[in-house]
């Protein structure tokens, strides 16, 4: 019998995996994928809660998060292309002009 807990566990695991991708990968595109996974994990939560609470608000929230993720991805891709043009790399660790 699948309960809410199973869905939340999957979401928590996905969130941690996304976090690991952001922290471990150097490449801007991979980092972006990690961030998208984190947002997806949150969306699983929204939809699962929506079902278990019997209210549709959670699904609407998930829809908004999808929209925001798409907008974020569009800008990020533009920044990545710009970075490749200017710095010749998409590796955030190789970009060391600013000593951070």
């Amino acid at each position, binding site marked *: 019998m*699948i309960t809410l807990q199973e869905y*939340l566990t*999957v979401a*928590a695991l996905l969130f*941690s995996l996304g*976090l690991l991708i952001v922290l471990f990968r150097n490449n801007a595109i991979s980092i972006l994928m990690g961030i998208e996974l984190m947002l997806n994990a949150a969306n699983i939560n929204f939809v699962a809660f929506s079902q278990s609470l019997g209210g549709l608000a959670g699904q609407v929230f*998930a*829809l908004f998060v999808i929209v925001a993720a798409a907008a974020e991805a569009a800008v990020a891709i533009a920044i990545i292309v710009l970075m490749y043009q200017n710095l010749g790399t998409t590796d955030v660790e190789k970009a060391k002009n600013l000593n951070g």
Partner: protein
Amino acid sequence: MIILQTLSARLPDILFYLFAGLSLIGAVQVLCRRNPMNAAVSMVVTVLSIAVLYILLSAYFIAAAQMIVYAGAIVVLFIFVIMLLNLSAKEIGRRRYTLFKAFAAFVAAAVGVSLLPGVRGAPRAISEQPIDPSFGSAKTVGRLLFGEFLLPFELTSILILAAMVAGVVLAKRDITPNRTFSPVDAILDLLLKSDRKDKSP
């Protein structure tokens, strides 16, 4: 026969474990694959499996949106950029192993574990049957979007417009218009004399 009956009774459970597992495997692949293309395709596996989970949760409209927006737009955009920039496996595949990263992994694990008490404390179970056959359909979700959540919905239009403008500004090489609306310029030159000497050729 009995096996078939139990199978069909437990079909949602089987589907859940299948696709939850697939989505996690996809995510692990995104983390581990050196080849950027493989990572992007694993991402597709993950987002499509998540869409199936949404269907199991009777969120049909969100499942469709997930497939169209994530698999159809966002990941395609990733693949497009990987092809466009011709990123090699070496370029994209390097991973960082330092003390700081070990610490970061620890933090990630800690976050994951700390979320579990919250999970265990979750009060309610998933209801077996949807309360209402129209639950999660485009119509009911749409009613909420244009009713209770009208302002957030309108705000997303500003958000998307801003993202669009941002994308164009960053990606387009030359955004100076090649023709100017000269009557206005003439009036402005008269009004704002200080600006005259800075005209671009």
